[in-house]
């Protein structure tokens, strides 16, 4: 850490981890409700559990991205943050808004929440991931504007590296792509066509740019590889992302009422969407091989290298399996999609957030790296979480395949609940893997409470005596 204003990243990272914890708790409840439909009903209906689970995901990722931006932008620009105070105020506003919204979900029936918050004036509620009441949505825009103002002003007065341009540009993209959240036409087909501008635009477009920038930053810092090489790779990767991903949005348009040509265009372009993820894997390992230093933060390196791999599995491989129109005809709207969503969100965005936290938190706490025992805890948490998430993915995939065969095909297709009953074994596996993930998360969080820093001298002595 080179600039004292980078410290504002710390509350963002801590809040991100706390919200992450909350997300997993709601995930466990939702998983249990799949098995016991009366669990916590009617106090916590499934839809409320689910929206809490998904909204916490988005908020903690945004927290982590914002923290990362406040950490990276000054360091890249080689100047103090324009206004650390504004960043801190923004943090509290954002956290309070998130907490209020969550309380609204939990304690007020959704339709009443809509009536209370003026949804009738400008209807925006009732869409996946965008369940937030109107005031929260406006709050998100204001928070984003504050972040953009702060980092852009920092950029203007400082050094303009390509990495910083990509990061700040993609943050602008993130904010702009949120604006269609205020467009919710009566025509359901147009509404879902436009809903994908946000969801696809974020996770299969703009966020991949953020992912690239964060990973690029970590790799520059940890491997000491020449910035020119890293930035050139970054441009190639994000070029491939947008060149495949923009028309690739068509793979969401096959069966929602949009014209038939999307079946061809979406299939072709989305089939190419794994390419940038593959490039990301190649990039990360190429940088590792060309490294000019051995960074003591092994845990951060592990996160950074695993991110592209798991992202490739989740977004690339699992996405590819269901992206072609003839396949999606049977898997659309099944747990196969949920399987892909889980591994892709975790592998790409959760893991890159945890990577930057793993890299930056020790520095924010005044040490280059945590003590080896803390790192061992962190890496144990890493393996448990990654393994558990892969099991969750496989279980959901199994459930999705069962639906595709029993409910979607054959001469005598079964009804929805009949098929769900036959998938119980997969939902049990998912729930146990979820508990595994939760324990991994506890181990991971525990690593933050192991004190001490990386001691070069004793490590060197140990290495020599071994």
């Amino acid at each position, binding site marked *: 850490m080179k600039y004292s204003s980078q410290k504002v990243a710390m509350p963002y990272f801590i809040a991100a981890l706390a919200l992450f914890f909350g997300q997993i708790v709601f995930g466990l409840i939702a998983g249990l409700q799949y098995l016991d439909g009366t669990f916590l009903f009617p106090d916590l209906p499934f839809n409320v559990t689910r929206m809490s689970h998904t909204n916490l995901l988005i908020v903690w990722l945004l927290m982590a991205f914002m923290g990362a931006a406040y950490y990276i932008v000054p360091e890249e620009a080689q100047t103090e943050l324009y206004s650390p105070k504004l960043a801190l105020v923004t943090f509290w506003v954002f956290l309070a808004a998130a907490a209020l919204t969550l309380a609204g979900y939990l304690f007020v029936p959704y339709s009443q929440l809509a009536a209370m918050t003026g949804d009738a004036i400008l209807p925006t509620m009732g869409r996946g991931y965008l369940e937030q009441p109107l005031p929260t949505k406006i709050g998100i825009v204001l928070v984003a504007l504050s972040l953009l103002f702060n980092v852009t002003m920092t950029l203007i007065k400082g050094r303009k590296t390509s990495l910083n341009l990509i990061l700040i540009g993609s943050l602008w993209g993130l904010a702009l792509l949120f604006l269609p959240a205020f467009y919710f036409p009566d025509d359901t087909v147009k509404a879902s066509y436009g809903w994908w501008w946000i969801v696809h635009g974020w996770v299969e477009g703009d966020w991949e740019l953020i992912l690239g920038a964060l990973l690029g930053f970590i790799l520059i810092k940890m491997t000491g590889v020449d910035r020119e090489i890293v930035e050139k790779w970054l441009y190639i990767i994000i070029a491939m992302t947008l*060149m495949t991903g923009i028309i690739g949005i068509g793979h969401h348009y096959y069966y929602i009422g949009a014209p038939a040509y999307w079946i*061809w265009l979406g299939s072709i372009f989305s089939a190419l969407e794994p390419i940038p993820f593959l490039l990301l894997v190649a990039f990360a390992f190429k940088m590792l091989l060309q490294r000019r230093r051995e960074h003591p933060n092994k845990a951060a390196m592990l996160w950074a290298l695993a991110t592209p791999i798991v992202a490739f599995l989740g977004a690339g491989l699992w996405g590819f399996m269901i992206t072609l129109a003839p396949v999606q005809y049977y898997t659309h709207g099944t747990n196969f999609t949920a399987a892909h969503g889980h591994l892709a969100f975790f592998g790409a965005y959760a893991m890159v957030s945890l990577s930057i936290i793993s890299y930056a938190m020790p520095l924010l706490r005044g040490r280059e790296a945590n003590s080896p025992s803390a790192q061992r805890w962190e890496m144990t948490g890493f393996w448990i979480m990654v393994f558990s998430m892969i099991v969750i993915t496989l279980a959901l995939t199994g459930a999705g395949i069962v639906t595709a065969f029993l409910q979607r095909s054959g001469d005598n297709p079964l009804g929805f609940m009949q098929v769900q009953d036959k998938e119980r074994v997969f939902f049990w596996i998912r729930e146990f893997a979820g508990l595994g993930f939760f324990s991994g998360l506890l181990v991971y969080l525990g690593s933050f409470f192991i004190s001490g820093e990386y001691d070069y001298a004793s490590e060197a002595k140990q290495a020599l005596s071994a």
Partner: protein
Amino acid sequence: MKTASSAQPLPGDFAIWVFIFAELLVFGVLFSAYALSRMSNAGLFDASQATLNRSYGLVNTLTLVTSSYFVARATRAIRHGRSAACGRWLGGALALGALFLAVKLLEFHDDFSRGITLSTNLFYMFYLSLTFFHFMHVVLGMVILGFVAYRTYAGAYDANRYTGVETGASYWHMVDLVWIILFALIYVLH
């Protein structure tokens, strides 16, 4: 002399070749998709194809091939250091590119006034998206060539420095190559 020349790298900046191969891959997939979906709809494809005015396709083929030839001459000229000639050839190529666009727009206008859209049938879906996708490549190619021509007039290239010309030229030839296949596939084969 022969052995020395065969060891030459690809003309122009290597980055453009990555781009060219990626584009060829996408067009290759699109062409294959067209051919494969015709398998089960041959009658529909042939009947719809018969409504196209093949002459537009021919004129555009001749235009683009000639334009590509001009660009080849421009590359040749700059390798000999004749930058004024290079600029003239590039200008001619750009004019032909504009002619291509004009003819194509005329054809699109015809199509639309016949009430044809992407949703009319599978053939027109492919016909319109393939030709429009290619149309956009011509536009992009002209932007690149225009930039190269401007740099040529500004004196940025000579007998020793002409990577830029080769880079733009390579892209333009790719646009030409794709059209040659597209012309046969969409307008001729049935």
